[in-house]
């Protein structure tokens, strides 16, 4: 499939401009999570099942060498041909060989994302074969010349009206209405029945490969995969090496998760296990069966930090729950696999360079991980890919450098507080009248979509430091203390609080023992830790040297002047957020 992941943002922009499609996706975004939730609630033990299946799959992947070999032995014993393909080209060539050996002209195909990965259909058609997708959704997009937008429902981006137009155009069946969806399905059934019967080769995927018996599992609602697997003379099953499970019951356990997560059903109509070619007692079935087992980077992923991604069962739940996927649709992602799982697989199966926008199309909201039946830590893997991008300097320089600058500054607290103090005060002054900015230099990304709220006043640290300063009993101060605050960063244990007059302060006010940072300021930081420089420097100028009576503080009301402290009821005193210059402190 031609990849357009490198233009993700343009693709997304294009997708967001189509109001009808946006509306359809919005509906799906509300609807699909509801049906999945209902199904899981009906099951009742989602977490327990998820953990069990995860352990079995982890065990299988940990010992894939053993189970893959066992599968191969059993499959051969059952009478299959078993082929291996390192990459898409090898798979495509192998399949073409088999078809040509049998002089096949017509291929009936079940849904297989793996064959989309390798571009099998195009390859076979270029060699002169006619390939018909028999899964209704795949058939629709094949007729429309499009790519799938969702891994479970490839044509969900199309309206019934669009499909009606398509069928009227492509099927030469005379004048007819096709008013209802049932009519469309009926017509597809009729057209495709012929293809099943005419095909010399059937090509399907596999939801699982069973090591102990050499069976492959196929799961559909339509039954089209089974028709491909039973009617043509030759059957080719294309799948990847990581699909192997030890026992049949492991596959059906995984199925409990797959179906509910994908469609909200408790089971699909057809779950079939096929072992090989026609036997003595068979009256139908293929005469010859082939497995083509594709690697295409699975063994790389298995050996990497991203190996958990191999647990994916292709249910599509993460797509349905991702606000970015539902916002922009599957085509924006530009390749076979969209949504959260696609944003991990596309870089791993193609390249990070070609698809570096995809791991960034994520807010780490975590909804995907919440519903993932394989319990894959999707947001973490995406973040790790972003880390990889940072390492390879694939992200825009201004972001990388901006982060580094911010990080450096934040490691120098005094400088950070001073600089931010100035900047924020200035920004506050500029913005206080309107309360927000509709434009702000260096923040075009933000302000293109929303206003930027102006800072409230001085920074908290500025205000807090000022308030603390006012606590200090200073001989030069001749005005009464205006605020009663909890002091911070004293090194000595504070004297006990004077008892307040009865009925006074409603909350306890106790002196606070010195906090570590204050201690650390004076003391050298421990050798191992990376201490910011300022901590080994002199103590900050404003650190109070003693503690006065400590009272509760209320939140500031900005813009209001400081009021003198009333006697007993501290809690009603207001502190000011009014920006105060150091000279003002009295």
């Amino acid at each position: 499939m031609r990849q357009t992941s490198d233009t993700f943002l343009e693709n997304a922009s294009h997708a967001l401009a189509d109001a009808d499609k946006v509306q359809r996706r919005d509906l799906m975004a509300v609807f699909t999570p509801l049906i999945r939730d209902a199904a899981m609630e009906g099951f009742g033990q989602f977490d327990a099942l998820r953990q069990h299946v995860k352990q079995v799959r982890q065990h299988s992947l940990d010992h894939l060498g053993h189970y893959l070999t066992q599968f191969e032995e059993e499959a051969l014993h059952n009478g299959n041909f078993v082929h291996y393909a390192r990459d898409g080209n090898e798979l495509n060539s192998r399949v073409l060989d088999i078809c040509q050996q049998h002089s096949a002209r017509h291929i009936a195909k079940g849904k297989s994302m793996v064959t989309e990965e390798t571009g099998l259909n195009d390859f076979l058609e270029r060699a002169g074969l006619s390939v018909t997708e028999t899964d209704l959704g795949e058939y629709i997009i094949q007729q429309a010349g499009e790519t799938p937008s969702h891994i479970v429902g490839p044509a969900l981006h199309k309206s019934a009206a669009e499909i009606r137009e398509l069928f009227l155009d492509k099927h030469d069946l005379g004048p007819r209405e096709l008013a209802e969806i049932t009519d469309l399905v009926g017509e597809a059934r009729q057209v495709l029945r012929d293809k099943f019967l005419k095909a010399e080769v059937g090509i399907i995927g596999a939801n699982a490969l069973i090591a102990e018996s050499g069976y492959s599992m196929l799961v559909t609602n339509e039954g089209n995969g089974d028709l491909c697997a039973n009617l043509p003379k030759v059957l080719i099953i294309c799948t990847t090496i990581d699909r192997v499970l030890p026992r049949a019951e492991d596959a059906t356990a995984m199925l409990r998760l797959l179906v509910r997560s994908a469609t909200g059903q408790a089971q699909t109509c057809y779950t079939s296990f096929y072992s090989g070619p026609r036997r003595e007692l068979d009256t139908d079935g293929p005469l010859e069966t082939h497995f083509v087992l594709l690697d295409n980077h699975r063994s790389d992923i298995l050996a990497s930090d991203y190996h958990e991604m191999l647990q994916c069962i292709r249910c599509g739940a993460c797509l349905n729950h991702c606000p970015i996927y539902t916002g922009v649709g599957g085509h924006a992602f530009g390749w076979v696999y969209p949504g959260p799982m696609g944003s991990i697989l596309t870089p791993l199966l193609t390249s990070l360079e070609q698809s570096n926008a995809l791991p960034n199309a994520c807010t780490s909201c975590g909804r995907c991980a919440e519903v993932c039946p394989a319990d894959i830590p999707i947001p973490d893997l995406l973040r790790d890919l972003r880390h990889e991008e940072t390492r390879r300097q694939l992200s825009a320089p201004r972001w990388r450098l901006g982060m580094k600058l911010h990080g450096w500054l934040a490691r120098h607290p005094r400088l950070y507080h001073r600089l931010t103090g100035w900047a924020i005060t200035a920004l506050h002054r500029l913005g206080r009248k309107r309360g927000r900015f509709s434009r702000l230099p260096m923040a075009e990304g933000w302000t293109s979509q929303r206003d930027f709220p102006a800072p409230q006043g001085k920074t908290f640290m500025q205000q807090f430091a000022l308030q603390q300063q006012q606590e200090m009993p200073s001989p030069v101060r001749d005005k009464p203390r205006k605020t009663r605050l909890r002091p911070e960063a004293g090194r000595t244990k504070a004297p006990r609080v004077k008892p307040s007059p009865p009925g006074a302060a409603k909350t306890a006010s106790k002196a606070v023992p010195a906090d570590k940072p204050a201690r650390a300021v004076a003391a050298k930081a421990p050798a191992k830790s990376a201490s910011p420089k300022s901590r080994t420097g002199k103590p900050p100028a404003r650190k109070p040297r003693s503690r006065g009576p400590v009272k509760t503080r209320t939140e500031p009301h900005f813009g209001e002047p400081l009021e003198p402290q009333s006697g007993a009821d501290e809690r009603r005193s207001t502190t000011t957020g009014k920006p105060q210059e150091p000279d003002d402190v009295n």
Partner: protein
Amino acid sequence: MTRPATDTPQSRPNLRVSLFVTCLADLLRPSVAFASIKLLEQAGCEVSVPLQQTCCGQPAYNTGDYETSEPLARQLIEQFEDAEYVVVPSGSCAGMICHHYPRLLKGEWRDRALQLAAKTFELTTFLTDIAKLQRGEREPIALPSVTYHDSCAGLRELGIKAQPRQLLQELCATDVIELQQTEVCCGFGGTFCAKMPEISGKMVGDKLANAVATKAAVLTGGDLGCLLNIAGRAHRQGESIQVRHIAELLVGDLDSPAIGEAES
């Protein structure tokens, strides 16, 4: 020694809390931090504020720059690890400390991170689960109608859902008017909103539409990033819904301008 007043939990010694104010509150909305202090003190805590705090390192971490984030994580751990409790008025920053520091750091630092994580709490969770703040004798704070946005990190990393609603009930006798799709991301996502503005714009537009549809006067939540995002969009679209942080509501700070509002 002053006795705690009757409306604070008396059955235990006062909890000593170190406040991590968060850089967004520090820079853009200090009232959140001041309100947090007030709430904690109402709950009978002794609050201290380590002065050298800056940033928890989340922005760099989320963009994948682990190397820039790590020193910030270590700095914060050093600054706070001696506290009895650390309280944070932000689900994402608390989540960063509790969940992500142990992922980010190795060896001895990871152990120290885990120890810190064990005593670090988001504000509303601390107030309900640990400090058990109650209204006591005070009158409930009068609030206009309120709707609530469940910020993602707080919700999914820390399980924050009932706690803010509980506090609104307890202190303000207010029930949240739930918005549709309350658990769907608002599109902030740290640098995401600036890197992918159009997609973020769609998400925040949807969130705002759902908030406005509740007809509530105020939208609140526990994460300033989300609230700045939603408020900014509300003002851009000319919607009148006010946006405030939950801490501000819980202390009745309604007079100061809401997020993005002009000073009157």
